């Protein structure tokens, strides 16, 4: 049994369906995965609890919800760190990914694969984001994550953490000026109805991790474990490609539906990265120099 908080039609949920079908096919129905997307079994942090206690075999979930258990995952939230998604995948499929797998294993999880949640971009109702000053004082909703909040404070915005279920109403009523999410989420949550300006800040890149309970997974024979990993690898490959296509399509849709799109210039991006350096230092304090250095090193090589 796998639980997820993404809607049925999200690329990650469809990738899990591919995983399920492949798995059933390759094991002649010996192994079957039941999927419960769309928060059917509770929200993201609850899903993580369920996998941790073994009541559910696995979950596909935004990586932020595991960073409470494995702080090293926060190194992936370095602001303005990734130039493109290839960079991000190279990092997660490389040595750093292996380190994360070990850390997750220590906490009783097996990481089966990393999918794309996507680059996060700022939308708002006040003005187009042309320079770093345009972010000044904007009340922007963020996920309840210290690094995210600190980053936005560092670049001059007023970060507000709020449950996603309240965001639509809060934006509509003007409680918030803006929010930040991947294009696909902005589009499926219909936030374009309550937001005028769209940008491509790409301040964070988010992964979806598929984790299983380690004990549940280890009870499978070596052979079956291998089949599970292979089936997941196929699903992940499909998802990464589909997510990239949908990301582009979602951006086009948002513009088509009337949002004003303002790309971030290179200077502005450099200014933003510069302004958020302090956050990198704080992250070093929190999760250790080694991990942060490793990420920065692997990104530049």
């Amino acid at each position, binding site marked *: 049994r796998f639980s997820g908080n993404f809607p049925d039609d999200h690329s990650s949920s469809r990738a899990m369906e591919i995983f399920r079908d492949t798995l059933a096919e390759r094991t002649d129905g010996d192994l079957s995965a039941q999927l419960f997307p769309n928060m059917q079994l509770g929200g993201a942090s609850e899903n993580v*609890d369920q996998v*941790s*206690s073994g009541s559910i075999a696995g979950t596909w979930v935004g990586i932020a919800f595991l*960073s*409470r*258990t494995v702080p090293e995952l926060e190194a992936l939230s370095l602001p303005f760190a990734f130039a493109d998604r290839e960079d991000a995948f190279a990092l997660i499929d490389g040595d750093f990914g292996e380190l994360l797998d070990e850390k997750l294993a220590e906490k009783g999880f097996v990481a089966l694969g990393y999918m794309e949640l996507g680059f996060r971009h700022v939308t708002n109702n006040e003005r187009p984001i042309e320079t770093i000053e345009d972010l000044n*004082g904007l*009340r922007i909703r963020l996920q*309840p*994550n*210290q690094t995210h*909040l600190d980053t936005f404070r560092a670049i001059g915005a*007023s*970060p*507000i*953490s*709020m*449950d996603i279920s309240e965001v639509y109403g809060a934006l509509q009523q003007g409680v918030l000026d803006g929010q930040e999410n991947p294009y696909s989420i902005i589009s499926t949550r219909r936030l374009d109805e309550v937001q005028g300006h769209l940008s491509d800040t790409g301040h964070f890149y988010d992964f979806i991790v598929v984790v299983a309970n380690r004990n549940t997974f280890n009870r499978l024979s070596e052979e079956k474990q291998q089949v599970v990993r292979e089936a997941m690898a196929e699903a992940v490959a499909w998802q990464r490609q589909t997510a990239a296509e949908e990301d582009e399509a979602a951006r086009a849709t948002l513009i088509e539906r009337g949002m004003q799109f303002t790309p971030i210039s290179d200077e502005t991006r450099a200014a933003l990265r510069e302004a958020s350096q302090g956050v990198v230092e704080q992250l070093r304090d929190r999760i250790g120099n080694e991990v942060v250095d490793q990420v920065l090193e692997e990104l530049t090589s």
Partner: protein
Amino acid sequence: MTSAWHQLEAHASSPVKRHFLHGLVLLDRTSYYAILVAMGMMTLLVSAQVFTRYVLSSSIDSADELSRLFFVWAIFLAIPHGIKVGIHVGIDALVSHLSEGLQQRLAQLMALFGAAMMAWLFWISLGAVVSKWQELMPTLPITAAVFYIAVLVCAGHSCLHLMAQAMRLEPLPSAPTHRGGLPS
């Protein structure tokens, strides 16, 4: 001995029962003050969040999470008091046809089942607290298990009250009598 001890003489005949009730009184009193703190902090945090947003144009990072924490605590701490004053909802369509004595017996039996369920829940929650102990909350350096401790406390406290009901012991009011008077 506290003043509650003397009032208890009217409520329980044997010393053992009186000790049990006395312990329950002290627990109720502690929980009563904890509820006041939780409710107060919750209200304060939510209104402060509005205030800081407008007046200071900023936001308290942990306000959302902390207010939810106090909310969860307020609810789970208050459930045992709800049991005590008997404001829980049930279906009495069938039972109301029985004789008064039989209804009483049945209520005691149900309280006993309830107590057993709460004891079970207490045991399970203990496991949840232990396994969650290492994990921290996203914006605060506190263990994430504090949420589950609320469930644990609720289960234990409720179990004691349901046991009291099964033994037909009437606990004293939660609020100190010299201050706010009797609650509800």
